[in-house]
């Protein structure tokens, strides 16, 4: 059994990110950092895993050939104030051929509202306390909190954005010919529901 290479995994997990792992019947596992997704050998693939920082794993498995049916992608955003960040990583597989029905797992970030502190700038201890208070769901994984602050018009402070994430799935969606319309499950934290994925993500 091959262990997960600690350094790569820790690099991902320390940023609150998930990664994929491909398991084969006839060759060693391939990890996200080993090769580009579009170059991943799909022949002989038995399972595709979504490895998450909270220790959970989303598993896509099939008794029949997975080549041409599995897909993986990440959803990101560039924000004019806080910069670039990852929103989700999705793995999935078409259940049949032609009808587009599929099963997915996703590691989804959710971002809490900014917190306003009237008066003086709060201490780091106060911010930490709020982060722990925000974590009310045991499935939620605290990804990060930004310690940046800005002074409000009313002489208060807006501090931090608490980012949390969770593994969601398995859930069903539908792959239209040539594209993937990400609807997500009812428990999805993703705000966007119109991501279109061309066949190139498969």
């Amino acid at each position: 059994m091959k262990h997960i290479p600690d350094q790569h995994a820790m690099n991902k997990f320390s940023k609150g990110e998930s990664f994929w792992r491909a398991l084969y019947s006839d060759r060693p596992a391939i990890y996200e950092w080993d090769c580009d997704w579009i170059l991943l050998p799909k022949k002989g693939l038995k399972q595709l895993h979504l490895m998450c920082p909270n220790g959970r794993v989303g598993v896509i498995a099939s008794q029949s050939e997975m080549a041409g049916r599995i897909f993986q992608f990440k959803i990101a955003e560039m924000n004019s104030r806080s910069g670039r960040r990852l929103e989700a990583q999705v793995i999935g597989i078409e259940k049949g051929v032609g009808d587009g029905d599929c099963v997915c797992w996703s590691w989804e970030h959710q971002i809490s509202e900014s917190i306003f502190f009237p008066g003086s700038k709060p201490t780091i201890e106060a911010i930490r306390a709020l982060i722990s208070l925000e974590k009310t769901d045991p499935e939620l994984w605290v990804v990060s909190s930004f310690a940046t602050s800005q002074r409000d018009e009313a002489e208060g402070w807006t501090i931090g954005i608490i980012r949390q994430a969770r593994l969601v799935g398995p859930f069903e969606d539908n792959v239209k010919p040539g594209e993937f319309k990400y609807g997500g499950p009812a428990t999805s934290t993703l705000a966007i529901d119109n991501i279109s994925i061309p066949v190139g993500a498969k």
Partner: protein
Amino acid sequence: MADFTDLHLEFNTNSQASPTWTPVTGAGKTTRFLDRSDAGLAVASADWPRMTRPNSVGGVDYIYAYTADAVGLGVLGSGGDPTSWDNAKYNQARWKWDNTGTFASTPVFTAYVSSAHAAISRGTGGLINGHTTDTGSPARSYLKGNAWGRVTSAGAPAAAPGADSGIANGISGSVSPSAGANWLAAYQSLQGDNDYITAPFTPAATTADSWPIMVRLHTGPNMNSGDHTPVFTFKYTFA
């Protein structure tokens, strides 16, 4: 299919004929709107001047591109103060990316109330939320956007959008310009996941390029008073 090393929003701080693109994305960088061109180019964000809420709907005509808290340039200002909004000056803004990443789908351009990207309730009077009396029903964002139907390398805009931005412009959900040398026929409300613009193309892999856009801010007597600090957002996927 890797992510991008550099992907940002930039405004033209020179002229329509000879653009100079100034990045305004990231920590300390801001795009500021005002109804005056003489606010200054060295104003700390905490001291940014207020504008009086108008008695009737109108535009907020001047945009400032601040690259640091007190270091700014006027959009389309030839290195100085900004010039007034003019729909004919279509070399106004663009999303730009480097050659390190590969898009897996068509990108999306929108705006949110804050970088928390919370779901947006229509009609509460915020800059992005809109108000039915000012911005129509259902309430659209006071902030509008337009977008070009192809990446710059395939052909930059050579003409302005056919219609100027209107305060009630907007369609629920996604709109896309027709692929090719086309702007949106009408400006779109930029309201998070309620109203947004989807590119009609998936940009080429590992190729530096940009997507021309235009932004226009309106205001009205029913806009909430206070500071409004929305964010422009570019959503994309990669594998």
